């Protein structure tokens, strides 16, 4: 695999998308920014797929079928917020309304995972979400939660796919960049 992967970034009408892009451990020229509708055709040329954050829900945003297409091609995929919820829905979890938390910092407990090697323990994390994954089941596993049990991160048991409910890109997630870099390392890009 190339050391400098071609990244396909799916932009979903958000005001935090370019924060996520700036957080990626690769040159800006290696990131192609597309809408959900454009993304499927671009998948064959992508080394990594990043599903960005955004409003509404993954079905309305048109992301769930894209996750299935990426899984079929085994494209390493990182979902942030809305993208994380898309991974959940694509693999059998439920999405429910939770207490909205926008601009709120929480402590997230991250356990050892394949997709985020070397990053574990308590993490300060910025949240921007009203919906949360529930009933996460195989092939997904929960790798991070809040103290109240709210799911904060998932990964796929076999495929190189993971999701973060919180925002690694926020100025109030101090180890966010480290976490995203760990994902790229975890899926084979040093």
């Amino acid at each position, binding site marked *: 695999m190339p050391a400098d992967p071609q990244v396909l970034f799916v932009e979903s*009408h958000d005001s935090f998308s370019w924060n996520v892009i700036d957080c990626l451990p690769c040159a800006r020229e290696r990131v192609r920014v597309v809408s959900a509708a454009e993304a499927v055709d671009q998948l064959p040329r992508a080394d990594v797929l990043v599903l960005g954050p955004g409003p509404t829900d993954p079905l309305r945003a048109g992301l769930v079928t894209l996750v299935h297409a990426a899984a079929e091609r085994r494209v390493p995929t990182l979902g942030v917020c809305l993208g994380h919820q898309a991974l959940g829905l694509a693999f059998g979890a439920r999405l429910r309304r939770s207490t909205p938390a926008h601009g709120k910092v929480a402590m997230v407990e991250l356990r050892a995972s394949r997709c985020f090697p070397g990053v574990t323990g308590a993490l300060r994390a910025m949240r921007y979400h009203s919906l949360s994954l529930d009933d996460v089941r195989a092939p997904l596993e929960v790798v991070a939660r809040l103290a109240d049990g709210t799911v904060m991160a998932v990964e796929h048991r076999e495929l190189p796919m993971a999701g973060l409910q919180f925002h690694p890109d926020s*100025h109030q997630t101090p180890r966010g960049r480290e976490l995203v870099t760990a994902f790229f390392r975890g899926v084979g890009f040093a």
Partner: protein
Amino acid sequence: MTAVELEALGRERAFALLGPGFGDGAAWTLVTELSEGDGGEVGVWLAAYETPGRRARRFKGRARPVSVGTVAAANAGAQPSPRAPLGGAASSEVGESPGGATPPRVSLDDGGFLDGVASIRERIAAGDVYQVNLTVRARVEAADGAALLARLCARGEPRFAAWVRLPDGAELVSASPELLFEVRGRAIRAEPMKGTAPAGQRAWLDASEKDRAELAMITDLLRDDLNRLCVPRSVDVPCARRFLELPYAVQAVSDVTGTLREDVSLRDVVGQLHPGGSVTGAPREAACEIISALERTPRGLYCGTLGLERGGDARFALLIRTAERVRDGAWTYGVGSGITWDSDARAELDEVRLKLGAVA
């Protein structure tokens, strides 16, 4: 020319003061601290809230430093009447005397505003939006721009004062506390503002989790704006929250900085940062759609931006605490409040009424 004589005083706090008395009709004269007083040419940018930043109008002005201190001193007797209901007496006219008991006519009455808050909270619960700035506009009577600017300055000098008359007859006065952005060479700094408390209530504002969350959110939004324009990894938040002690209020701001890419023009910057995230909400696109559905009149120049440019440097104010003259000679004055899931509708209404007190 108006009754108020504007004098050149300290440049420390004056930003821009554009007055008909300095102009020759077609062009206007600009007075700004950006100049060292040599009267050189500067660019003046103006965009209404509804105008895309890429289509902001650019004018030329002559620079001269002034202070609005004399305006404030001449009208020091003005007293706001804060808690009048919104549009409680739709048919009434507001008298000339500042502090009159008659409430101003507004674009949304109390019920409309409370319904708007409820609607936004439902959209937040559904995941459609994270925060929306809901505003109303009140109709106020004033003899002229000077009288209204004086009312806005009655409790002390604003950070960014402006009085603008356009060649097409449009007119605005502004006593804004908010910097949208400033550019020095390739360095850009934005200063999003979220959270207001009465003067002296800094400790209360500091402890408000709702206000803290709102500012964090708009700070991330401004980072996103700058990340679209700046050299990769150059965007930073040197200060996530500090307090501005203004004569009439305490406000919380953050500092977001970055280095603009060489291919980015000032028009690109205005195109991205306007309308300012603190007056839209987040995400901007969804918030703007909800605003246009809930607010019953256009915002116009209120929530727009006014900027000055000279020799590659620029400074843009966000046009809050701003009044715009409408066709029949009356003025409209806009006020608003950031609505989040944590909003208490009655408290938001009180905040809007308090802000209306500046001109009531």
